[in-house]
Structure formats: structure tokens, C-alpha cells
């Protein structure tokens, strides 16, 4: 048993920032992460961090751009907090030594990015995330913050009151990957979830293998609602075999997309007659998939991105890293052949419902980073807005959890205020009754006694691992790949009612199959089979909530496209989708979007660029 | 700043000396080879000829310096190589002093030889 004031789960950008903030606020903080901090996926971010740093720019403009980009599904108080605080946070990073790219006069460089009215994307070459992650880890080392690395958090110790709003979180249960030990981590002040993305719900993603949405699923089963899960960003140019991202820069420089017949389909098939390849991410992704679906894809899978005509000199000068990526991960030489690309899952706009301080509906439980939904990205995230989210909300959550007084939140959590139930009928049974799940508050017989809940959870976790290791059954990998396949086939950039229903059916089957999942590796040392098996359960729960949201939202907003509903419906749908686990019987409900900002109200406008 | 001065840890000093001696040896060893194998052939060596060379102060000092640098360079090189393989503690101290002793013997014997040739220190 370990005990600290604040426990941070996850050591990506959000987790590290939260830990530093909590420590600065005087708390004894520890980070628990299944990966060593520098392995976190924040390191993969390339583009940059949006921050209104210059005199000609203002946080108001940034907020306006973000609200517009979110297709008016962002909550203004959260969006404004992001835009107001991101400049100081970026300067803070600079003061911690982050090696940003520089201007002639020695100031940090900024560049233009899609959807921004000012070039405010601050960057460090094409490796901004890597530099940010390492800079923050360095600060963690400097401060001597305790890090339990390669500890997989299995579940939260949350009391089991009937109403989630009465529940409180007292720590986490984690499994030491190196030794197989299961241990409790008591958090006297708060637990901050910063477990990152959930790309592994899909089989083709720019996300890491470790991005299985554990934090989201754990919080969900403990009673925290998941918000706006249906909004998933797909990036149009990822390498087919690995999902590695080919930066938008290639199209920016003049790269051209071709189908199997050698047609420049963005124009020739009329997907974007003005902008062509440079249309927004969702438009290009849909165009590519239409080509493939209509039989004009190469090997029925991908299209070609050609940059040969740019000339060797220009390519080497501006896109050198793309050559390496294509060569190393796809075996393609961008100088002599076109590169294969297809859309891939990139970012989850939704996640654990929080307010602008990172608080969730459960007392003592916080979330920040990609796993959280405050919500700043609404229906669509702008490039360069995720990294500032990590540092701004990571810091806020850290300070709040450490007990700092931060005022009243404007964003509500849980069923407070004007929430409304959904009246959507699912044809397939969702969820899982019978309390088979692993989280404390999901109907399992765990006490409401705050002191005993952690010990009780540790015992339960031990029993669960013991069972997985000793019984015989299916390998999780089959189940995981089934889920990923059906999600990619049906809940991708194109969503139709029938196929979404079908997916719920597939997920039902997967749930059944998961009931007799077993781990065949009996070892306690570095048993990745066991870890992956536990992650697969999380993937299942997330996939289901995501699909439920996608079915219920009968409109086309931001990244969410519905065949039957081809326009944005502001009268009905200026509201967030929420899914509550309810001890195994998922419930869908809504709460309104907050469009009133500090000085003004953001009026929904047509999102055209 | 006296502290700064002493902060030139032996590691750095030895490293530098190894390079300086190497640069010196490069020239002198080339000269040595050239003189004793190409100008005079090795099989034509005689005591008299060697003595004649040694009696010149410049040649004598060059050769002694050659011996000193080569010994330092070689022995320090060996010592370094051993440390790089993880030689530590008592073993290391023993090796160090053994090498120092061997160097002293080598230098002593070498200078004695030179003096024998030159018939005493050539003044």
C-alpha cells in the first residue's frame, strides 16, 4: 500500500503537468503510469501548441476560432480558460528550457494552422510533442516527484453509493508489470486521470498501442458519465500498414491525391472544387473512403499521395522527415513513387466529463488531457489545440486536487442543471448487468466505507487477476481485433443507422466472448498478455458508448457524419451526449452546450473556411 | 580561482597528455624508424655508430624525451584500457602502482643505456 496526497494516473503531457502543479501547490504527489513517462504518446505530436502570444493576436480570437472549429459544441468557459492560460503555460515551458523553434530576433516561432485566424501555433520543429513531454519530465526529475512507472492502473477505489454524485474516490489499484504485484495507492486529496487517447478502439490509428482509453473506461464504470464520445477525428493521410501520420504539410506544399485510375479525385469527382487536397480533414477523409468504397482505391484499401513533382530539392528542404517516415514505416520512397495513404483515427474529442477545473461528478476524482472532456473541442478539434489543453487543464486539475481555492465552476458535472434524458431506443441490448465488471461502483458488492474501499478493491483485483491467469478460455486478441474491425468498418468517418446497429450487435457478441477470456501466459513477470486482456475490456466499454452516441445523434456536426442526416441541427442538438454506466445498464442523456462566454455569447455560424 | 584550477581532474589531464604525447610520438617515431631502418639499415647497427649519435646532446635529449613520452603514452594507454573494462578498487590501485613501477624500471634502464652509449651524460 502506498499513500500520497495526490495520485496522478498517466505521465503524458497532462499527467506530468498536473503532478508539477500539485507539487507546487504543496501536495505530496505521485505519478502512476503503465509506461515510463517519456514513452507516453504526447511524444508523437508533431505540429504545435496554439497560444496567443503576440500583440497582434488575442485570446479572444483564439477562443472564437476554437468555438467555431468545435462546431459550437465546445463549452465557452472551458474554451476561454484554454485560450487565456495557454500563453503563460507556453512561456512557462520555454522557461523550463523547451527548445522551441526560433525567429531571427530570438523569440519563439509561430506558424499558421488550419482554422486559425492568426499564426499562433508555437512549435519545436516537427517534434513539438516530443520536446514538450521531455521538458516536463525533466522538471519532474528536478522536483524529485515520485514516479511508479510500469504500473498499470486497473481500477479506481470509489465508494458505492446509489447516486454517483454522492460517491467519492480514495485511490487506485495498480498492477506492477515488472513483478506482478498488485497494490493500492491511497490518495488523501484526489486522483487525477490523465490516461490519454483511446485510438485502439479502431484498428487503424495514429495512436499508440497503449492508448486504450483505460482512464475513460475506469471512470465510466465507477459512475462518471462519458461525454461526446461519438466525436472522433480521422486524419486523412496516415500510412496504411502502421497508421503513422503523414503531416498535413505535404498537402500544404502541393502534394496531390490520386485514386487507382490516376484521377485527381478531389477535383475530378467534385469533393472540394475550390480547395481540393487542402479541404478540411473530415472532407478529405470522406473523399478518400468514398473512392475506396466505390472501387477506385488501390488494393481496395488506400489512395496515393504524390509529392514527386515538388522536386527533390524542395522535398529535402521542407519535407525531409516525411521521406524518412514513408521509408521506415511503409518501405516507400517518396522521391520516386507516390506514398500510400488512408484515413486513420487520430483524436477523441470526447471523454470523461469534467468541469473547467478537471473535477468529475465523483468527489476527489479529476481528469485532464485527451481522456477528459471539459469540453474545449466540441465536435471537432483544431490542430494545435490538444497540447495547450494538456498543460492548461493538467495544471488546473493539479492545483485543485492539491486543495487550492479556485472559485466556482461554470461547467456542471453529472446530472445537475438542465439535463434531459434521451428517448432513443437501441435495438440491441447494451451494457452488462450482473456486476461482472471490475470497477468498484459498478454494482459489485463493495462497501460505501471510504476507509475500507481501497483494501476491498485490492482484494477484488487480486481475485480477478488470479482468475484470468488460472482459468482457460479465449485469447483477448481475437476479441480486440473483432471490435477494432467492426468499429473501423462501421463507425468510421461514414456512419449509417443500419451499420451502427449492426456494430452494437457485434459488440454484444464481443462482450459475451469476453466473459470467457483467459490469459495463457502464466507468468507474473512482465505479463503483457494479462495487461492487454484488461485493456480489451476497456476498449469494449468505450466502443459501445461511442456507438450509442453515434446512433443517437441524428445530425451532421463536426467530425460526426450521418448518412441519413446531412445537416447540422442547432435547434435540437446544441447539446452534449452523455452516457452513464449505471451499474451495467448504460443510459444516454444530454446537457446543453454553454455558449455564453466571459464577455460575449458565441452565436452558431456556418462553419466554412 | 584555486578551486577551478584543481577542478582539472586527472581524467582530463591524462586525456590531454595522452593526445599531446601522441602528437609528439607521431613525429619522433617516424623519424626514428626512418633513421634506423631506411637511412641506416638495422643490420648495420654498431656500438660505435650508436655511440656517435648519442654523444650529441640534441640526439640524446630527443631520445630520452622519446623514451619518456612513449613510456607515459603506452603505460597510460594500458591503464586506461583496463579502467574502461571496469577495473576498480584495490585491484585498480595494485595495477596502477605495478604499471608505475614498470615504467620507472623501463625509464631507468633506458637512460642507463643511453648514458652507456654517450659515455655518461653528454655535456
Amino acid at each position, binding site marked *: 500500500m502506498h499513500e500520497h496526497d495526490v495520485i496522478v494516473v498517466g505521465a503524458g503531457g497532462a499527467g506530468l503537468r498536473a503532478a508539477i502543479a500539485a507539487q507546487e501547490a504543496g501536495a505530496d504527489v505521485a505519478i502512476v503510469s503503465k*509506461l*515510463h513517462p*517519456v*514513452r*507516453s504518446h504526447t511524444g*508523437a505530436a508533431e505540429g504545435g501548441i496554439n497560444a496567443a*502570444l503576440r500583440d497582434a493576436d488575442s485570446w479572444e480570437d483564439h477562443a472564437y476560432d476554437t468555438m467555431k472549429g468545435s462546431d459550437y459544441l465546445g463549452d465557452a468557459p472551458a474554451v476561454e480558460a484554454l485560450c487565456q492560460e495557454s*500563453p*503563460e503555460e507556453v*512561456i512557462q515551458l*520555454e*522557461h523550463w*528550457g523547451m*527548445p522551441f523553434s*526560433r*525567429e531571427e530576433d530570438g*523569440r519563439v516561432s509561430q506558424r499558421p494552422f488550419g482554422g486559425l485566424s492568426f499564426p499562433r501555433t508555437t512549435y519545436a520543429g516537427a517534434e513539438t*510533442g*516530443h520536446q514538450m513531454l521531455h*521538458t516536463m519530465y*525533466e*522538471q519532474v*526529475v*528536478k522536483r524529485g516527484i515520485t514516479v511508479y512507472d510500469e504500473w498499470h492502473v486497473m481500477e479506481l477505489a470509489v465508494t458505492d453509493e446509489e447516486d454517483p454524485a454522492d460517491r467519492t474516490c480514495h485511490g487506485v489499484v495498480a498492477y506492477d508489470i*515488472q513483478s506482478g504485484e498488485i497494490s493500492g495507492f491511497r490518495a488523501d486529496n484526489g486522483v487525477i486521470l490523465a490516461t490519454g487517447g483511446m485510438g485502439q478502439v479502431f484498428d487503424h490509428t495514429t495512436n*499508440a*498501442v497503449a492508448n486504450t482509453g483505460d482512464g475513460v473506461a475506469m471512470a465510466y464504470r465507477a459512475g462518471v458519465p462519458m461525454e461526446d464520445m461519438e466525436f472522433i477525428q480521422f486524419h486523412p493521410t496516415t500510412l496504411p*500498414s*502502421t497508421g503513422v*501520420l503523414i503531416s498535413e504539410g505535404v498537402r500544404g506544399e502541393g502534394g496531390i491525391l490520386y485514386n487507382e485510375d490516376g484521377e485527381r479525385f478531389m477535383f475530378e469527382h467534385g469533393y472540394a472544387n475550390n480547395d481540393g487536397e487542402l479541404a478540411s480533414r473530415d472532407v478529405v477523409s470522406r473523399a478518400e473512403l468514398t473512392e475506396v468504397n466505390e472501387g477506385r482505391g488501390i488494393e481496395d484499401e488506400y489512395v496515393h499521395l504524390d509529392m514527386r513533382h515538388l522536386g527533390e530539392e524542395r522535398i529535402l528542404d521542407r519535407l525531409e522527415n516525411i521521406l524518412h*517516415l514513408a521509408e*521506415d*514505416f*511503409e518501405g516507400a520512397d517518396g522521391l520516386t513513387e507516390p506514398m500510400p495513404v488512408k484515413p486513420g483515427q487520430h483524436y477523441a474529442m470526447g471523454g470523461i466529463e469534467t468541469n473547467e477545473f478537471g473535477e468529475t461528478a465523483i468527489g476527489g476524482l479529476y481528469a485532464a488531457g485527451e481522456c477528459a472532456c471539459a469540453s474545449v473541442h466540441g465536435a471537432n478539434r483544431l490542430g494545435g489545440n490538444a497540447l495547450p489543453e494538456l498543460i492548461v487543464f493538467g495544471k488546473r486539475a493539479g492545483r485543485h486536487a492539491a486543495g487550492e481555492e479556485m472559485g466556482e465552476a461554470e461547467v456542471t458535472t453529472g446530472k445537475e442543471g438542465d439535463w434531459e434524458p434521451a428517448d432513443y431506443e437501441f435495438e440491441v441490448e447494451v451494457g452488462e448487468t450482473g456486476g461482472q465488471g471490475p470497477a468498484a461502483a459498478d454494482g459489485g458488492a463493495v462497501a460505501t466505507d471510504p476507509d475500507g474501499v481501497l483494501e476491498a478493491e485490492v482484494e477484488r483485483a487480486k481475485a480477478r487477476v488470479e482468475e484470468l*491467469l*488460472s482459468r482457460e478460455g479465449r*485469447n483477448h*486478441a481475437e476479441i480486440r481485433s473483432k471490435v477494432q474491425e467492426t468499429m473501423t468498418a462501421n463507425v468510421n468517418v461514414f456512419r449509417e443507422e443500419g451499420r451502427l446497429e449492426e456494430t452494437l450487435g457485434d459488440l454484444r457478441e464481443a462482450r459475451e466472448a469476453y466473459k470467457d477470456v483467459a490469459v*495463457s*501466459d*502464466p*507468468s*507474473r*513477470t*512482465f505479463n503483457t498478455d494479462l495487461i492487454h486482456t484488461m485493456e480489451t475490456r476497456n476498449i469494449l466499454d468505450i466502443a459501445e458508448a461511442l456507438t450509442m452516441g453515434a446512433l443517437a445523434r441524428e445530425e451532421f456536426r463536426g467530425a460526426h457524419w450521418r448518412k441519413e442526416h446531412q445537416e447540422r441541427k442547432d435547434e435540437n442538438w446544441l447539446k452534449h451526449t452523455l452516457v452513464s454506466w449505471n451499474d451495467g445498464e448504460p443510459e444516454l442523456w444530454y446537457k446543453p452546450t454553454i455558449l455564453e462566454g466571459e464577455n460575449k455569447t458565441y452565436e452558431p455560424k456556418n462553419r466554412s473556411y | *580561482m584555486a578551486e*577551478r*584550477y584543481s*577542478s*582539472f*581532474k586527472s*581524467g*582530463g*589531464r*591524462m*586525456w*590531454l597528455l595522452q593526445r599531446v604525447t601522441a602528437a609528439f610520438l607521431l613525429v619522433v617515431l617516424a623519424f626514428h624508424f626512418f633513421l634506423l631502418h631506411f637511412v641506416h639499415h638495422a643490420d648495420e647497427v654498431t656500438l660505435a655508430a650508436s655511440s656517435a649519435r648519442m654523444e650529441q646532446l640534441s640526439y640524446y635529449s630527443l631520445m630520452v624525451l622519446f623514451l619518456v613520452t612513449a613510456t607515459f603514452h603506452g603505460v597510460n594507454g594500458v591503464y586506461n584500457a583496463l*579502467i*574502461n573494462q*571496469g577495473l576498480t578498487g584495490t585491484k585498480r590501485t595494485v595495477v596502477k602502482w605495478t604499471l608505475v613501477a614498470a615504467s620507472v624500471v623501463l625509464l631507468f634502464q633506458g637512460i642507463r643505456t643511453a648514458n652507456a652509449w654517450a659515455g655518461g651524460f653528454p655535456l
Partner: protein
Amino acid sequence: MSTQTPTQTEESSETDAEADAPSKGDERRDEKRRRAAEERARRQAEEAEKAAADEETVELKVFRYDPEVEGKQEPRFDTFHVPFTKGMTVLDALMYSRDTYDSSLTFRHSCRQAVCGSDAMFVNGGQKLACKTQISELEEPIRVEPLPHAEVRKDLVVDMEHFYDQMEAVEPYFQTNEYPDGELEEQRQTRENREKIKMSTRCIWCSACMSSCNIAAGDNEYLGPAAINKAYRFAMDEREGEDIKQKRLEIIEQEHGVWRCQTQFSCTEVCPKDIPLTEHIQELKREAVKNNLKFW
């Protein structure tokens, strides 16, 4: 690392230690283990057959070891036949082998794009990032082993603690005594200076360099190329100021610091991020000498 004593025997499995008399659970587990092994053998035999028929497969020989599983305590190589697809990397092949044949095959991996640094391993005798190594460029059969000169935990997983310790020994964090006045004022840095440290900031802590360096293998206390490179990253950053640089030079000058490096260049050869490690180490040596000579 190399000078440590074997810990193999100490790590007897928890389950074995639990009870003297075999419990029901133990029996069940033993039974299960036996059956799993049989199943594995069967599937691999099948695949080998298939491989013989089908030319488009690659043969992988993978190092296996587990201190607590019977039959794996003695290190061995397992052979896997993986259907080849264009663009396949060593990591892809390993994942395929794990998911299809043997779910106990263990290796670290995460990003699949050469930024997380988890999957440095010894492929056909060289330190490589598995996710960045194309199968098509390797000779078959492909031998995959854990990084040399590090203690093996299980299969391809090695103990990284020593490497982390070395990285953290060089005070790997930015330090300065003066910040600009304005609250939203960044420190200025010239483009040239940023360019100078650029490559050194790319390190992903994969430890391939450390594993390839013979000196690091022999001298456990040697900081190693990655840690020295980290020190370089800060020592050369003009934002830190002269007095801090002084302190940094003292750190890298210690007994097991830069002077240990024998310019073997293997670190530079294997670094997946193309960091000119030897060059950085050499520059620090010169800086240190220059710095010391100043006060003579």
C-alpha cells in the same frame, strides 16, 4: 548490467513460493501451462508447414526466456513464420507472432513510430528500433534478441533502470539564474544556438547507444553516450548561462564521464534518431580541456 550478479535464481516465482503442498489452483495452472505449451507447439508446427508451402513468409528466430516459467528458464530461440506484407516492420512481425501463435511473447512497444523509444532490440546482430526496421531490408532468418549488456527480464524485455539512473545523473533539467523581466517574456535564443542543440534534443531514451558501447558494457559506472548527450544538450544551450555551464562541465568530467569514451562510434551508428553522439562527446571533451586550461 554486466557487472551485476545473476539474479535469475532469486526470482523464484511467486506462485511457487506460496504454498509447499500444491494447491488446487497450482495444479490447475500447471495443467494449463502444459496444455498451452502443447497448443503452441501444434500451432507453430502448422505454421512451419504452411510456410514451406507458401513463399511469402518470413522466418523469425526470437529469443525466449522467463525466469519463472518452466521450460523458459533456460534461454532458447523460438521460430515463427509470419506472412510477409509490404512495409512490414520487425515490430509488426513480432506483434503478429504474439497475437497469432503465442500470446506470451513479450516485448515493449507503444507508439509504432519511433518516438517512444520502447522497442530497441538486437536484430540480426545490431541494435535497432523494431518499429523502424523494415523486414525487407533484413537477411533471413531474422534473429531478434534483447539488447546486449542489459539484464534480461523476460523475452525481449530488459531492465532499463540502470540506463534511467545514468540519464538522471547528469541533472537533466534546465537551470538558469536569470529570467527575463516581463511575465509573458520568453528567453531569447539565437537560431544558430537552437540549431546547435537540435539534434541532441531528439533522444528518445531507447538505450540502443548504451547497449552498443563497449566501454559502457565494461564499466558499469560510465555515464554512457545518451546521458552525455543529454548533458551536451544543456551545456550548449546559451540560455543557461556561464556559471551553470561550468557546473555541467564538472559533471561530465567526473571519473566515469566523457574521458571514458574511446570514440568507438558504435553509439552514433546505431542511434535511431541519427544523433551525432561521438561528435557531441568529443566537443564536450574539448570544452572541458579548454575550460580547465583557461585557469592555468
